[in-house]
């Protein structure tokens, strides 16, 4: 065959996606500049949304794409948080550097954890991840240097050693606690941008296509050369790293840690699943919608205590029943709206005669009898 000019082209762009990218860039710039004008309360609230959204994106990648329904992601939040406390208190490492280290340690711990839980399937996998998290909680409760079962706090000197703190105090004219809030807010925003951009990039690479193929049929995926096990372990380790870094920031912000809070299944897994499910599993946009909805529920209804939890549960179930694809999934379906499209479309660029034409020409020929069997 001669080297013909290409007849096909691939595109992922949709009409709104270019605008969405520009919008996201402007929003990010706006959020980065926000501490100059916003109240400390708003900064804290946004910090909460950012970190929960990061965790939700990781769980979405795990469960929504790789089919790994884990209820033990608090293991990596807790390990990351404890790494931060150990590194800053015991080794005197600067807190933001320690948060990076937390990601590395969580990823490293994900390897032996995967070795155990990946032997389990389905519901047993879920239970296995939860048990693993409990094991880590019990082990860390034994570490006297980090307060054992009651936990410990970051000293003022550790907090004020955070990079950029002095500069923020001076620039914004705020005291150390408020300056710390701003610095961790920026760190969380950075983690969120890296998370969203990273996941989007991942899903648009051939790796993302392979993940989607696994979700539909592992049997077929293996027959075309996709290594399911390797992909899943990779996603598990990647999301553990993110969870560890997020955990480090969350507990740097609160400056206090205990095994129960660091490894809380309710905070770092149940709420996270709620966010993903109500927002829409298997999309990047879904968890964003879910995190915002969850924030408002939390803000206005948390005072009702147990009733609040029951309401969350009921709401989760109702949404699963009437809109299994979540809030965003329903919107996306109805209006064919994809802000971060990952779907590859084939575009025919040349109008040379195609096989379809050939076939049509044939089929419109004289009718022929059925083939003998």
């Amino acid at each position: 065959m001669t080297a013909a000019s290409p007849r096909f082209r691939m595109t992922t762009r949709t009409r709104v996606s270019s605008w969405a990218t520009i919008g996201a860039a402007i929003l990010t710039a706006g959020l980065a500049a926000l501490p100059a004008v916003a109240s400390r309360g708003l900064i804290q609230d946004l910090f909460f949304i950012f970190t929960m959204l990061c965790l939700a994106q990781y769980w979405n990648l795990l469960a929504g794409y790789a089919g790994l329904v884990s209820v033990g992601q608090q293991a990596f939040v807790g390990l990351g948080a404890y790494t931060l406390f150990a590194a800053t208190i015991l080794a005197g490492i600067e807190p933001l550097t320690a948060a990076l280290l937390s990601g590395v340690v969580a990823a490293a711990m994900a390897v032996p954890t995967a070795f155990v839980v990946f032997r389990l399937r389905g519901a047993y996998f879920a239970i296995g991840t939860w048990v693993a998290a409990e094991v880590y909680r019990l082990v860390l409760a034994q570490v006297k240097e980090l307060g054992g079962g009651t936990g410990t706090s970051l000293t003022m000197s550790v907090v004020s050693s955070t990079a950029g703190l002095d500069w923020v105090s001076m620039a914004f004219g705020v005291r150390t606690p408020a300056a710390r809030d701003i610095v961790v807010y920026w760190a969380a925003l950075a983690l969120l941008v890296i998370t969203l951009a990273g996941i989007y990039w991942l899903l648009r690479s051939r790796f993302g296509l392979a993940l989607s193929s696994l979700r539909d049929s592992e049997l077929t995926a293996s027959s075309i050369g996709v290594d399911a096990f390797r992909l899943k372990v990779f996603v598990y380790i990647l999301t553990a790293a993110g969870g560890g870094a997020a955990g480090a920031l969350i507990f740097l912000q609160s400056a206090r840690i205990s095994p129960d809070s660091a490894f809380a299944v309710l905070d770092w897994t149940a709420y996270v699943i709620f966010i993903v499910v109500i927002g829409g599993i298997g999309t990047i946009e879904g968890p964003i919608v879910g995190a915002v909805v969850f924030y408002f529920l939390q803000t206005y209804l948390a005072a009702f205590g147990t009733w609040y939890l029951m309401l969350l549960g009921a709401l989760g179930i109702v949404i699963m029943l009437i809109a299994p694809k979540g809030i965003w999934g329903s919107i996306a379906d109805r209006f064919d709206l994809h802000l971060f499209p990952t779907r590859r479309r084939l575009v025919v660029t040349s109008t040379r005669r195609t096989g379809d034409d050939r076939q049509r020409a044939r089929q419109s020929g004289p009718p022929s009898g059925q083939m003998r069997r």
Partner: protein
Amino acid sequence: MTAARMLSISKLGKSFGSLVVTDKLDLELGAGEALGIIGPNGAGKTTLMNLISGAIVPDTGAIRFDGRDITTDSPQRRCRAGIARTFQIPHPFGNLSVFENLLVAAAYGSGKREAEVVEACGSILDMTGLLSRANRRAETLTLLERKRLELARALATEPRLLLLDEIAGGLTEAECALLVETVRAIRTRGTAIIWIEHIVQALLAVVDRLVVLNFGRKIAEGEPRAVMSSAEVREIYLGIAA
């Protein structure tokens, strides 16, 4: 090292419980050769395909591909080595588009970057008559279209050995003739083929050699027309095909 022996299967055995589905089977295939397999329902044809592609592991015996023992290799490893298959019951990636079904197969099966395989995927869709469905979700396809997608997806991995499992069932005569033409075109490029099919006419138009399986055993092998006219085959085969 014998270039002619691309695939070599020796004393292959597989049982499901007490049911022997593959019984001390020996089979050889040369590079670029086309082999047809026929046999009554439950003869173990699909099982043989599963054994060659690695979907199931044999109890006994060995499979060699390009002189290398692949008996215990994973399906993905065999695919990357150049073996592709279709599924008798189509298993598309339902939530991916038809084009994406091929794209992922091409990218992983041949280890290339997505951008490098777009052209090939488009051509395969064209050749298999699926171009007009390229951007539809695979789960919206009809059964016949799904069968074509099975073939298209297997081709996208750029196989040197293509395993086809009943891809002609339910086609009209014109469609069947078109399929035969397509499979012939694949052969011309040097791809070896093992084709399981109940529609013998289609097989006879393509294959060099025919194997008849019954109860997991090879009961006849040889030049297609000679095999089809042997008394034993006529009895077994026409017995079920009537």
